[in-house]
């Protein structure tokens, strides 16, 4: 079973994402901000990270940069999932090493479509 780390400061979003991803047969861990996610990754590196942008403590972009700079951190597929929906944010995310980008609001179909594009489904 593949593992997915869902990183979002909203409990509701984490719950929705968890439900969709569990149906797609992913084993889910959750993190509430970038630092929490980084700690989780140091413990167990997931196959994929679904990543919010704006969060307290450490935001998604800073997490991504730290992850990519860490040992083995180039392996997880990172899919941003954020309300930031302008081209400059998208470009910044992709240049920092994100593999895909979801603009909220999302639904099951978008998650499925994006995950299959990066070869996860």
């Amino acid at each position: 079973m593949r593992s997915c780390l869902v990183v979002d400061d909203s409990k509701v979003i984490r719950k929705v994402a968890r439900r969709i991803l569990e149906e797609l047969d992913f084993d889910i861990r959750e993190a509430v901000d970038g630092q929490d996610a980084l700690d989780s990754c140091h413990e167990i590196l997931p196959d994929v990270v679904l990543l919010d942008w704006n969060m307290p403590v450490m935001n998604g972009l800073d997490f991504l940069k730290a992850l990519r700079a860490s040992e083995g951190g180039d392996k997880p597929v990172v899919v941003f999932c954020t309300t930031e929906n302008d081209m400059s944010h998208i470009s910044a995310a992709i240049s920092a090493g994100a593999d895909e980008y979801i603009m909220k609001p999302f639904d099951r179909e978008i998650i499925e479509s994006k995950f299959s594009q990066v070869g996860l489904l």
Partner: protein
Amino acid sequence: MRKEDFELLSTILKERSGLVLSEDKVYLLESRLTPIARKKGMETLDDLINEVRLRRKEDLLREITDAMTTNESFFFRDNTPFDLFKEHVLPGLLKSRASNKRIRIWCAAASTGQEPYSLAIILKEMEAQLSGWKIEILGTDLTQQVLDKAKAGIYSQFEVQRGLPIKLLMKYFTQAGEMWQISEDIRKMVTYKPYNLLDNYAALGKFDVIFCRNVLIYFHQETKSDILDRLRVQMPEDGTLFLGAAETVLGLSDKFKPVPGKRGMYNTADHVAQIRKAG
């Protein structure tokens, strides 16, 4: 909905578009036609049906037909046919058409443009290999309204996220408020034209590749057979047909043969016979 109301609407739809509506699709009539009734200031769908029965005004009938025949569409829908097009069909055509360097592609149910634009993006990505080639993409659909949207190439955030990889969005789209518009470079690679699949195709000419996906399901058996047989006439012997993943020619037409292991892809039966004879 009363039986006679359902029959009235389904007869109109059958006559005008060939669309066959079974009785389990009553909900579809209600959900798509109620907004039209509202827009016309009517209280209920019954009022709209009465209006149809009494006056049969052309513009109202067209609006109803359009609302019922518009299909959902997304970029690179089902992936496989686009991969097959890129990896099998196109390389073959680059060899077989090397003398005149012309390829014609027809999207026979182009809807809001995602399918023809997906093909255009594939071709654009291969630009270097295709220099000197003239590749035409024709997109047709019954509904003018969806073709207007296709031509404008403007899509919602939802639409650009279904099937379209983010890197292609970055490369070929610009943001326009809440919407995303596909670049002019891609838009001008596709020509759109309203066309009814029940009409004669002769004026459209011949096509090396025809995409006719997820539209035959709306027709009766004999209409499906007729459309398939007539699509064959619009192709050279080595042409390729793509149908939807859940569709088949089996029991409908002997003019096409499925390509083994290539889901949704069909060669002409004449071509298959030719290869068998040569082999």
